[in-house]
């Protein structure tokens, strides 16, 4: 482009321009790798964010089985504390949904830290607003237009690392939008259909004698093809024995992230969207619609953690959602939009093997507006610790816009 500052200005303003890819960076990477330059570097911390879109039902994920009110509030969808399909006990208050049992060994190994009653103090129950506020890490503030992870990538910019951020879907999540170039991995049908990719490669071939103004479109198409081919190349590279990933989301996406990590291309932040958690109807309990999704989620995360081997020590997987759901089930064996939610932190130096966050039970008085889980931990307190303790990044004062981390008990080992 003629004028890069104008371009980034436009980019900053237009929400329509947030899918950003760096076409040549992968090429440069391959060259760098061939020279073995990446070998000697100490391992950089890696953050993988799984965002459960739709407001996942925290209460059936991290189940307060010991509270007698739990099963009363959920006559058809409560998870039993004992017997068949019972929760997987974590301590004397909480258990995991049985579909999450593949994560339990990581809890035992003290590598998994669930957090209860975490979320935003902003009262919105709109998916759109709640996700926005969380991903920009600025509740109620509609002027912040750079995602919290993009702000990290900008502020901690390093000259020697090329591919630092990826989103495993064509549309960049808001957390990764901003001035720092992040690769949005395009749809898998285009990356995986060899004939189609070849067709577009031919279509966007150079035209001898073509005037400059035609070059922009053609250049754009060419670099798209290059990016897709390089990306395919990295994914097709043999990197030894792999773990078994589920075929359903987020299995294939996490398998690709793991491959990028194993191929040592300098990845530091990866985001994966997991859709479909807006369980208003037929949510199911120990089995059912949500249980199927949870199993896929847990098995994918467990496979990922196994697949990357020792790299799990410098890699943190965060599972988050925009809000939890109503404590009481509704008339359709589902739940409606709530307030407080949950998070999982797995890997890195996390203080695992215990449930973090304050818990005051399910009495009406302890709930938010007598219906939802309250928020005792501001999500930004978690983000701040992740940046500081895991990413080794000292966030500047203004990082969270009108918010100073409250200093909740440490989530990470000193």
């Amino acid at each position: 482009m003629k004028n890069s500052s104008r371009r980034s200005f436009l980019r900053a303003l237009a929400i329509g321009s947030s899918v950003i890819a760096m076409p040549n960076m992968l090429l440069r990477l391959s060259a760098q790798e061939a020279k073995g330059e990446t070998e000697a570097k100490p391992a950089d911390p890696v953050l993988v964010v799984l965002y459960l879109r739709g407001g996942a039902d925290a209460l059936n994920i991290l189940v307060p089985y010991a509270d007698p009110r739990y099963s009363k509030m959920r006559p058809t969808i409560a998870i039993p504390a004992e017997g068949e399909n019972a929760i997987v006990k974590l301590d004397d208050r909480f258990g995991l949904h049985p579909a999450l049992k593949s994560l339990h060994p990581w809890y035992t190994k003290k590598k998994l830290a669930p957090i209860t009653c975490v979320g935003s103090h902003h009262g919105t129950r709109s998916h759109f607003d709640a996700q926005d506020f969380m991903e920009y890490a600025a509740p109620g503030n509609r002027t912040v237009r750079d995602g919290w992870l993009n702000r990290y990538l900008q502020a901690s910019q390093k000259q020697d690392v090329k591919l630092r951020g990826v989103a495993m879907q064509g549309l960049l999540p808001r957390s990764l939008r901003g001035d720092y170039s992040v690769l949005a991995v395009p749809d898998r049908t285009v990356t995986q259909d060899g004939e189609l990719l070849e067709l577009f490669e031919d279509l966007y071939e150079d035209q001898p004698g073509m005037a400059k103004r035609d070059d922009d479109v053609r250049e754009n198409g060419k670099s798209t093809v290059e990016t897709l081919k390089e990306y395919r190349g990295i994914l097709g590279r043999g990197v030894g024995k792999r773990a078994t990933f589920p075929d359903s989301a987020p299995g294939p996406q996490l398998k690709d992230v793991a491959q990028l990590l194993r191929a040592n291309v300098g990845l530091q932040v990866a985001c994966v969207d997991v859709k479909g958690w807006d369980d208003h109807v037929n949510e199911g309990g120990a089995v059912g619609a949500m249980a199927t999704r949870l199993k896929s989620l847990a098995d994918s995360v467990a496979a990922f953690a196994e697949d990357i081997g020792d790299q799990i020590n410098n890699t943190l997987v965060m599972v988050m959602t925009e809000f939890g759901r109503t404590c009481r089930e509704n008339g359709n064996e589902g739940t409606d939009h709530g307030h407080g939610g949950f998070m999982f932190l797995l890997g890195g130096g996390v203080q695992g093997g215990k449930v973090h966050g304050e818990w005051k039970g399910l009495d009406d008085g302890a709930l938010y507006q007598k219906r939802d889980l309250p928020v005792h931990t501001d999500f930004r307190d978690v983000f701040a610790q992740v940046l500081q303790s895991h990413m080794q990044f000292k966030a500047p004062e203004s990082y969270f816009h009108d918010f100073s981390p409250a200093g909740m008990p440490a989530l990470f080992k000193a």
Partner: protein
Amino acid sequence: MPRTLQLLAALVAAWWTVCPVESQKTPSAEKEAGSGKEAVLNEDARIHHFLNRFTLGATPALAAEVKKKGMRAWLVEQLRGDREEKKSLRDAIAERPALSLSTAEIAKKYAIRVGPDATVKERREARRMLNEPPRQMLDGVMLHAILSENHVREVAADFFRNHFAVSIEKGPVALLSVDWEREVIRGKSLGTFTDMLAATAHHPAMLFFLDNHLSCRPATEDEIKEIERRSRNNPERLEAARQRGLNENYARELMELHTLGVDNGYTQDDVIELAKLLTGWTIAPKSAGQRHMEFMFAPSFHCAGEKLLLGTTIAANTEDPQQEGEQALKLLAAHDGTASFLAFKLCRWLVNDDPSDALVRRIASVFRNKKGDIAAVLLAIFDSPEFFDAANYQAKYKRPFEFVVSALRATGAELMDLSQLHRSLVEMNEAVYRCADPTGYYDQAEAWQDPGAMAVRWKFAHDLARGRIGGLRMPDLMAGLPEDDVPSWKDILARKLLCTPMSDATSRALDKLVKSHADDNARERKRDLVPLLVAGILGSPEFQKQ
């Protein structure tokens, strides 16, 4: 060589270098009747160029119609915007009853109030009903863009929808958007700019989107004391009274985005003065009964006194203070800066991303002389020598909206359920009526040309060609293709979809594809070739441009 000949030679040379299409003909130097300018594109290319810019996508049928009637005569007729719509569009609109209702009727029918004791089912039904008007409105935008006979009005509507952008993500704008789209955007886009500006300023969707409905003179000390006395048990109310005051949001955007353009001769003082002039322009509350959610002037919100806007004194109108705002809008609509800014944006929309100062100056003077007559301005752009300049042919990149709409116009897919189409635009980052910024979506290529976005277009082209976009029914793509002459398919499909000759690279790429399939005699493989050819043509560089 005489100057004109020199120029012509240069343009011919330019045409040869930029358009190495296979069916190159020597461009004819014919004279377009009435326009008095020398053409350098051949007639088919001129018609293609014209349809690319003055419609949302060329089709062979449209090209034939324009060829028969003559471009200028066709445009003049289109600028009236009164052509009868075809049955398919009328039927599709009739299936969406909210589209013909007023805001009051919509509120009555779709905004069902549920009590605190409502069941979950009742709540869900209420939510579903509330989502109906904006859903139908979005369908209406797409249906008109694809099917309307008033092609030029749809281009103008697309322009003004972005020029006066509002987002249905913000509160009641969703409900108000039906009336906004029908009465303001589609209703006024070929009238005068003065009328259109006034319509936007009086519309509750705009007043709400840019917060003017809250803008109010600050409370006096006495008033605060009074409120303090009355609301001893209600500290929130007192706080609200203390905080209330001018909201500059609308006043600023009114000058920056809607009329003068950024930094175009106004100051922060002008913003404050304009905000004061517009205090009291708000939305009628529930207590207004029938008029609820309509525009209302609230005299008690209004800042009294004389104001100074852009060097012009606007005297206090104590009789009818709303007139102060009306006067300000007229002043802005008639301002030279507005003529320049609108001329610039329209030339950028219709001619090229970087229109010359000379063109913008000429169009701005038409805007002034014709008192903001939008149709006259569009005609002047068509008549300008720059419009058919060969350098502008295929020189603009299609926005995602233009890409999707033109692909659907070209393929003639039947539109039953549009929800997946709307989702495709979300993936391409141009969800209709969901631009959070009041700037609207950009139409310059640089805002859209990112590699990730290109791959999403390819996926869309491929999904569409394979009939994988839910809610759409693709016509039989094999129809009209001679079964025994596979090599001819690509040209037949390109004529239909592209309306312009293919580039060499496109032609070669498709030949290669055809060869790899034609060698295989299996019928399946041949049939599979057709969607790939269609995907290739819709995903080609030519189809991304206009």
